[in-house]
């Protein structure tokens, strides 16, 4: 179990996204949050089809258009230009959130500021007095989608754990996260707490535990 004390590189942003994509079943309806989660679309495993939903009213979202052919009225939730795939459909916001709140989206991949041992998610506000609070569709997504995957760096820029016993930032939802993909590990949120599924290459359990703010179980 002993290993070098210095930090190994762990997974890149792309590798985290690719790893998360492996866990999405064929034929899933998927909503991807802004940031690293957007990269998941580039790593659909061979032989699978995912249908992407963007909450501003499009099912069957395709990749970004080639430069010069952007349409300012065809954008995603991050307000970036996108395209449609054959079989796409447009609808208004109430219908779009019917898909989310009504449990019709299979998987949602989101970024996080903090995730707790019981699956609480904080990803919309630091709660700082001068912050402009902005929630968008995050609270609807975590309330309505069964499988909430989080992709996040394991620790904050300050070095503090982002996976914690209890979130200190304002919550997006309680007990909503199913699985966490970080640069160091893949971790399941279970009724009995966090459980390590996989370590990034060269990463030790010891190091991951040290960088995790809550107890981390293993199957072994």
């Amino acid at each position, binding site marked *: 179990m002993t290993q070098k004390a210095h930090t190994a590189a762990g997974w890149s942003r792309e590798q985290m996204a690719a790893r998360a994509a492996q866990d999405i079943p064929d034929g899933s*309806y998927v909503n991807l949050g802004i940031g690293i989660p957007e990269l998941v679309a580039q790593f659909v495993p061979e032989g699978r089809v995912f249908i992407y939903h963007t909450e501003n009213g499009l099912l069957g979202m395709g990749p970004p258009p080639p430069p010069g052919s952007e349409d300012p009225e065809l954008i995603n939730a991050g307000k970036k230009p996108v395209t449609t795939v*054959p*079989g796409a*459909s*447009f*609808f208004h916001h109430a219908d779009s959130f019917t898909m989310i709140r*009504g*449990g*019709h989206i299979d998987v949602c991949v989101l970024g996080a500021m903090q995730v707790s041992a019981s699956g609480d998610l904080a990803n919309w506000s630091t709660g700082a007095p001068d912050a402009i609070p902005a929630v968008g569709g995050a609270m609807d997504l975590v309330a309505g989608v069964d499988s909430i995957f989080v992709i996040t760096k394991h620790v904050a820029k300050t070095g503090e754990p982002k996976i914690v016993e209890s979130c200190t930032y304002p919550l997006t939802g309680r007990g909503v996260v199913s699985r966490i993909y970080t640069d160091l590990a893949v971790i399941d949120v279970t009724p009995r707490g966090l459980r390590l599924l996989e370590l990034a290459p060269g990463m030790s359990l010891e190091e991951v535990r040290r960088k995790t703010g809550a107890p981390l179980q293993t199957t072994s």
Partner: protein
Amino acid sequence: MIDKTIGTPAEAVSCIGDGAVVMIGGFGEAGSPVELVHALIDQGTGNLTAINNNTGNGEVGLAALIGNGQVRKMICSYPRSSHSKLFPDRYRAGEIELELVPQGTLAERIRAGGAGIPAFYTPTAVGTPLAEGKEVRQLDGHPYLLERWLKADFALVRCETADRVGNLTYNKTARNFGPLMCMAAKTTIVQARRVVEPGEIDPEHVVTPGIFVDRIVEVPEPLHESRLVAEGRRYP
């Protein structure tokens, strides 16, 4: 590629078991998924809870399903028909339970089921016998009833055109409850007059997005209930 089509009405409804809650599209005969309902009659599935605006016509389709004793409970707004005695006879005999719901409340409860809204307040039916046993709440000085969502195990819906990923369009007033029921059922089974490839329906014209549809069976020339009734036909 995703392909939700399935060969026959019989195969399409084979997943429906005894005791299921089944939403059945249509207002009168417009939008009635006759072939799917007949397949359910052939299959003999019993103890069903059926949700439809009416109770069927003549002795075909939903009326025949009721007449055949397969429906334990009916949730609808208007169980009278000048063309069918099958529901009234069973109802008077105490052989079928009825939950009577105002038409707009029925539509909204089904939409709520699909939209993840467990309950809502409505002005409809306040002060009437249909408010009995329901919570009344004053909001801004007006009384409203609390109504709960309606969900189903299955929806049987008829549409005009479907693509293989489940996008649907409807025909005129045959649209009615179809788009709502597609959203509110765990498994939605659709009979389409025409099945096309993804992309053939303009994304702007899709009425039911494919996410709400599970199984599609093509029935190019569906039966017209009014013609069957006029001919005095009965099913089976």
